[in-house]
Every structure is written in structure tokens, then in C-alpha cells.
């Protein structure tokens, strides 16, 4: 009896479980995009993107992202990436429920840790240009940390903070004061390593103490700013925080002569700062795993990759980021975090339920500030300098733009939005401009645009378009999306109307 192969195939296809069908058809799609990629890079990239778009409708929330990442990765290492995509898919459909939600973040983290190893082998993204180098990676992670911190204030608690750069500045100056020669008339050394000469004047404290110290100082700063202002309604709060965001950098700028005392060295900034490191003792005790000094470290080669100074900074930043994200997630699910969300949704009802408004908001402010301080402190140590010019209002809006783009309230969205915008700011815009200038010619007209010059106009457009068309962000949390579309009763409880008149 002749077997109708087609019929048999269709039969087994119909007989397959929904998940298996999904796996097979996704495999086919990935294969097709890879084939297309061999024909023409951009074509395959487009196909993969298209497939990812189709698939995101059919997969659960976090898996979409993993899939899209895997598809993009497929073009760097087609065969291994295909295997990884299949593993992710398998996990998405078969892994026990309780592990699933950590699989994608875990996978992304592993990929990030391995990033310095495969960065040089990656392909060039069309239009945007090459993948960021590891130094840019540190910059991106620092901004992601700040965005996650700001997300606590804006996303969780619904308080608009336009002066986040003040916290960044506080953190950066904490490192600058306590790990440099700024206060040369004092000589305090505590755990600082790799100083040349070892008895250099000034306050030198190890960065591992300074980072939490910066966080705590910044949180205190946040409380001091917050206490008088958090009574105000949202839009006033925004302006007052903006005011603080302008005052602190101005103090930094004029701080070279505060009644004869040189606090910040004015516009010349403070430099150089002590390099981070663990010291010879710890380094030899761990067999060289922990570098003695981040700048002079790294003589070894691992998996064919000569480890650079920047790589170590990158991994340290990743550790800080993981801590930040972990704290942020745990805070969100804590009693405090639920109180923040309640306040965001309806202040009056939250107060009626017994939530102390002022205390809860102040905590939101302090927690957000803490991470801003940590990020600022680490970034200053990475750059080894601090200038007042780094702390413009534009940076506050830039971080706000990251939060809005990714999706207020959703940590994963914020991380991706922030990483993307930080990359765009550093490289993407310049490369885009170069691409436009070489590729566009309409009837003999060639543009000559310096796209990077218009960065803040572009962020303005992003903010405007997002708020008008997708206020919940690209990767919204379901709750925020509902609030944005159904509206909330966000009339302020404390209103200044009739008060004091």
C-alpha cells in the first residue's frame, strides 16, 4: 500500500502537542533566517526580526525576549546559538514552573559575563554599527543601575524625580573625596591598595567601603531633599527635585572656594582617583582570582582571551548591577514595595488603608537615591575623575527617558531600555549619522547631519512619542499599562489650594 507521505506528515503534525509544533516551526524559522543571512546579512537579520515579532505574540512574557536575543545571537555563532535557542525553547515549554522565571535573566547574565570573550567576534549591527566594546559596557551598566534606581522612584512610587543627577553627583564626589589627594592636608589610609607611592597624602579609603558609603550618604541626601518636598503634589515635586539637581552641580562647580575651603576643586574636577583593587594579600590568597589592582592587573589569558583592565571593571559592574536588580525586585515585592504601588495608584485610598504616606515616599526616594549613589561612586572610580560638567540636567532627563522607554515599573524593561539608550548615546547615534550621510541620496541631495549633536532632541522625541502612543513603555508591567489606559484617581491628598491663604 502506497503511503501518502504528505498525508502522513500532516497527520503527525496535527497529532503533535502544541508545544512541539511550536519548537519545530520555530526551528524552521530560525533555519530560514540563517540561510537568508548567508545570502545577505541584512536580509537574514530582517527575517529573524520578523519571526521574533510573530513569535512574541505566541510566547509568554519573558520568553519572547530570550528568543529575540537568541535569534540575534544566531548570526554571531549560527550553530551554537541555534542550539542555545533550542535549549531556551525547551526550557520555556518543559522546565518546572518555579525555575522558569529565572532562566531568562540567568541566561542573559551568563551571556553578559561571557561578553568580553565573544565581543570581538560579533557581527556589525546594520545602521547602528558595531557592538559596544567592554569599556562602553561599563558605561551602559552604570546607566542601567541608575535607571533601575530611578525606576524605584518613578515606576514604583509614581513620584517624578527630575533631579536624579544630584544623586549621581553625590555618589561620584563621595568616591572623589575619600579616594584621592583632594584633602592633602589630611592623611588617612584605610584599605586602599596600589597607591604609588604608598604614603601618598590625602584620604584614601578602599572602594569596597566607599561604594556602600556613597549609597548611604546619597540616601541621606535623598531623605534631606525629600522630607520638605514630598508633601508637595507630583508636579511641584518634579520641579523641586529639578531645583536640587541644579543646585548640587552648581555647588560642585563653585566649590573650590567655599569660604576659603576647597571642597570640590571647582570646574577642574578631582583627579586622579585611586584604582579599585583587592590588594596583594587577597589576590594571592585567591590564587589571583581577585586582582590586586584594577589598572595594573590582568596578565593572564583565559579561553584565548587576554583579560584587560576594562574586563575586570565590567565584571565588577555586573556584580553591582545584579545586587541592584535583586534589591529592586525584592523591594517591589516587599510590604514597602506594595505600599509604593498603592500610593502610585491612589494616594487617598492608600492613606485610608493606613499607609504612612510621608514615610513610604521618603523610603522610595532614599532607596532610589541609594542606587544612584552606588552607580555614581563606581563610575567615578572607573573614569578615575569627577567633573562638575558631568552632572547636567540633561542626564536626569536621559535617565528618565530610559525608564519611560523600557516601561515604568518593569525592571526588565528598564534594563533593556537603559542599555539600549546608553549604547545609542555613546556610539549608536554617531554611527547612525554616518550611515545616513553615506546611504541617503535623494535626487542628488545628500544629508550632512551630525546626529549625535541632536541627541537630546531625539530623546525628546522618544519621550513625546512614547507618552502619546505607548505610555506604559515597550515592555510594560501589566499593572502600569492598565493604569495608563484606564486612568487612575491620582488626585493628590495634600493639596496646597486653600492652604496658607
Amino acid at each position, binding site marked *: 500500500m502506497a503511503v501518502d507521505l504528505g498525508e502522513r506528515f500532516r497527520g503527525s503534525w496535527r497529532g503533535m502537542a502544541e508545544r512541539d509544533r511550536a519548537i519545530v516551526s520555530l526551528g524552521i524559522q530560525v533555519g530560514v533566517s540563517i540561510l537568508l543571512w548567508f545570502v545577505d546579512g541584512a536580509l537574514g537579520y530582517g527575517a529573524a526580526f520578523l519571526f521574533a515579532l510573530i513569535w512574541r505574540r505566541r510566547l509568554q512574557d519573558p520568553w519572547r525576549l530570550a528568543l529575540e536575543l537568541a535569534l540575534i545571537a544566531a548570526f554571531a555563532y549560527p550553530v551554537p546559538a541555534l542550539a542555545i535557542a533550542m535549549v531556551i525553547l525547551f526550557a520555556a515549554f518543559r522546565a518546572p514552573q518555579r525555575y522558569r522565571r529565572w532562566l531568562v535573566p540567568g541566561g542573559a547574565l551568563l551571556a553578559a559575563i561571557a561578553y568580553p570573550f565573544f565581543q570581538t567576534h560579533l557581527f556589525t549591527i546594520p545602521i547602528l554599527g558595531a557592538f559596544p566594546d567592554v569599556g562602553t559596557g561599563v558605561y551602559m551598566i552604570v546607566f542601567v543601575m541608575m535607571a533601575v534606581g530611578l525606576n524605584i522612584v518613578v515606576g514604583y512610587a509614581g513620584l517624578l524625580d527630575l533631579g536624579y543627577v544630584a544623586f549621581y553627583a553625590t555618589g561620584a564626589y563621595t568616591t572623589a573625596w575619600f579616594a584621592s589627594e583632594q584633602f592633602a592636608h589630611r592623611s588617612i589610609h584605610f584599605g586602599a591598595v596600589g597607591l604609588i607611592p604608598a604614603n601618598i597624602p590625602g584620604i584614601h579609603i578602599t572602594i569596597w567601603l566607599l561604594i556602600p558609603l556613597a549609597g548611604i550618604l546619597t540616601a541621606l541626601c535623598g531623605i534631606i531633599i525629600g522630607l520638605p518636598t514630598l508633601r508637595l503634589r507630583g508636579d511641584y515635586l518634579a520641579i523641586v527635585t529639578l*531645583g536640587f539637581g541644579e543646585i548640587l552641580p552648581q555647588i560642585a562647580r563653585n566649590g573650590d572656594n567655599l569660604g576659603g575651603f576647597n571642597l570640590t576643586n571647582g570646574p577642574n574636577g578631582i583627579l586622579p582617583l585611586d584604582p579599585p583593587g583587592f590588594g596583594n594579600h587577597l589576590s594571592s590568597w585567591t590564587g589571583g582570582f581577585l586582582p590586586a589592582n584594577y589598572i595594573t592587573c590582568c596578565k593572564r589569558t583565559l579561553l584565548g582571551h587576554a583579560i584587560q583592565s576594562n574586563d575586570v571593571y565590567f565584571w565588577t559592574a555586573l556584580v553591582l548591577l545584579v545586587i541592584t536588580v535583586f534589591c529592586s525586585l525584592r523591594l517591589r515585592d516587599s510590604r514597602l514595595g506594595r505600599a509604593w504601588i498603592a500610593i502610585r495608584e491612589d494616594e487617598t485610598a492608600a492613606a485610608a488603608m493606613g499607609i504612612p504616606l510621608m514615610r513610604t515616599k521618603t523610603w522610595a526616594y532614599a532607596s532610589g537615591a541609594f542606587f544612584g549613589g552606588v552607580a555614581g561612586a563606581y563610575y567615578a572610580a572607573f573614569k578615575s575623575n569627577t567633573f562638575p560638567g558631568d552632572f547636567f540636567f540633561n542626564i536626569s532627563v536621559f535617565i528618565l527617558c530610559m525608564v519611560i522607554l523600557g516601561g515604568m515599573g518593569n525592571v526588565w524593561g528598564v534594563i533593556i531600555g537603559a542599555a539600549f539608550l546608553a549604547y545609542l548615546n555613546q556610539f549608536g547615534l554617531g554611527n547612525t549619522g554616518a550611515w545616513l550621510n553615506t546611504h541617503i541620496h535623494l535626487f542628488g541631495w545628500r544629508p550632512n547631519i551630525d546626529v549625535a549633536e541632536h541627541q537630546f532632541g531625539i530623546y525628546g522625541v522618544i519621550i513625546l512619542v512614547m507618552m502619546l502612543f505607548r505610555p506604559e513603555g515597550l515592555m510594560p508591567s501589566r499593572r502600569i499599562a492598565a493604569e495608563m489606559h484606564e486612568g487612575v484617581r491620582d488626585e493628590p491628598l495634600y493639596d496646597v489650594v486653600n492652604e496658607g491663604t
Partner: protein
Amino acid sequence: MAAEASTSLPTRLASRRPSLIGLLGLALVALLIVWLVVNFFKEPSTFVEILLIGLANGCVYALIALGYTLVYGILELINFAHGDVFMLGSMFAVTFASSFAIHTGQAALWPILVVIMLLAMICCGVINTTIEFIAYRPLRSAPRLAPLITAIGVSFILEDIGLTWKGPAPISFPAVLPQHDAFVIWGVNVGWDKLIVYIITLPVLLVLLWLVQRTKQGKAMRAVAQDKDAAGIMGINVNRTISFTFLIAGALAGAAGLLYALYFTSIQYTQGFQLGLIAFTAAVLGGIGNLPGAVLGAILIGAIQAFNEGLSWHAPGSDWTESIVFSILILILVFRPAGLLGEQTPEGG
């Protein structure tokens, strides 16, 4: 609306607030007065001259602050982009000035300046109305922070337009104002340039007052500011009234733009942000939503700025101007959030 619903609570809170903070505020004001008085007796004529400079600054700030206050009164929205509309106003003024080729000693200088001012006012009014239409109107029912965030976005876009249009370097406006003194009283030199600033500002303010308090459209504005729904029921076209308010606010910003260019003779695309914040502070200082309050606040802020930059005895100097202005903003919001003359939602009260 909610303002009525929560009336009793803040009043109780206000009475419970420890008087220590109030005393602290009084002490700060007393300190300021002592500083001013000492400075006055050290050099009386310089003091008054600086006050006149402050008054001229205050006139420019007042025109911008009125825009904030008008929009806040009607929409309860801080129109963050307003400062940048003012910046564009300056750019329009420079453009028209160069197309009319104005120069010192020109025969028909004053009529041309008036024409330039009207043109700048029209342009800025149209821009402001367009902004409202594109960026704020779709978000009427969204959470309160949404339009504020779009306002920031619009502000950045406008700043970028200014940058693209005129470039990053400061642009100079022809110095057509006579620099010599108009007259001297009691040893105080009153310069023509400041006098002209007052002379230009005053009619604009009077026309605005007349518009809001005497015309039908002004009545509609006040009604919409009080209660949008009720105003709609009474047959007022709410959207058109709001557009009209933005038109006026933009026109005031355009006038301020010309005045700024005329008086300071140097403009830059970043001026909108800084002056916008100063003007906003002025509006809050006087009591936001309150038209006379905005003018009073602007003059106070202008005077404080001039004193800070000009006085000799223990003045922090121009490096600290922004910090001082923002400290005033924060102190006002802490000690007297309703402003000096009290916050009023209905325009002009």
C-alpha cells in the same frame, strides 16, 4: 473637584504644623531684610540703580511667568516647554530684526520694533497652541504626570530646533537701545534701556488684564479654570478656550523673547531652560495661577537676582544665582506653598 474634597484636611494639617518651621522662615526673611538694609545704607544710589536693573529683569521674567501661571491656572499643568517657546521667541526676534535690517539711529525704529514684537508674538502663540494640540490635548484624561513628562520631551525638542536653526553659539541682537541716561534723580542714573523695557512691558500687561477680566473670552477662561465640566455644560467650548489660553501664553513668551533680545542683546538656544525655571519660580513665589502674583514674584526674583549680582556687601555673586533662585523656590514651597498672594485656580481671581 478634588480641591474642594480635600479642603478640610490640609487646613488641619496646616494648623498642626509646628510653628518652629514658621519661625525659621521668618528668621530667613529677617536676615534678607537686614542684608538689604545694610547694603542700602552703604551705597544708597547704587542700591537704587541695581533695583532698577532688577525691575527690568523682572519685567522679562513677568512676561514668561504669566505664561506659566495662565496655563497652570487652566490645566493645572506645569508647561515645561514654555521657557523654550520664549527662547524661540528670541530667535524669531533676531530673524525679523535682520530681515528688517534694524540698526541704531534708524528713522522708524520704534514702529519697526513694535511690528517685530507683534510678529514674534504671533509666531510663538501659534507654536504654543500647536504644542498644546499635539502634546497635551491627547493626554487630558491620563495620569497627571503624563502631560508633565511630554512637556519635558517637547522642551527638549524645541531646544533642539533652536540649536539646529541658529547653531550653538550665542547670537547677537543689534544694540539699538540708547545706552545713555534718561534722567538723573537724587544721584540715581535712570538708563533709557531699562526705561524702554518698562514702557514695553506695561501695555502688554494691561492688555492681558483687560483680556482676562473684561472680555467674553476671558470670562470663558476663568470659567474653564474653575470647572471644566460645568463650563462645558454652560456652552463654553472648553478645548477652544484652552487653545486660546495657550495662544496668549505663547504671545507673552514671544514678547518676552523680543524684550530679552533687545535688552540683553545676546541670545542662545539654552536660555529658555534657565529663564523658564526662573520664571516658574517667580510664578510659584507669587502664587501660581494668580496673575498679579506672577508679576510680583517676577519683580521680586528679578530684584533678588540683581542684588545678588550687583551689591558689594556680602553678596554671593553671579556664580550662585541659580542656586539662590532654586533655594527660594524650595523655601517657598516648604514655608508657604500657596505663594505670597495665594494660589488661585480661577484666572485673575
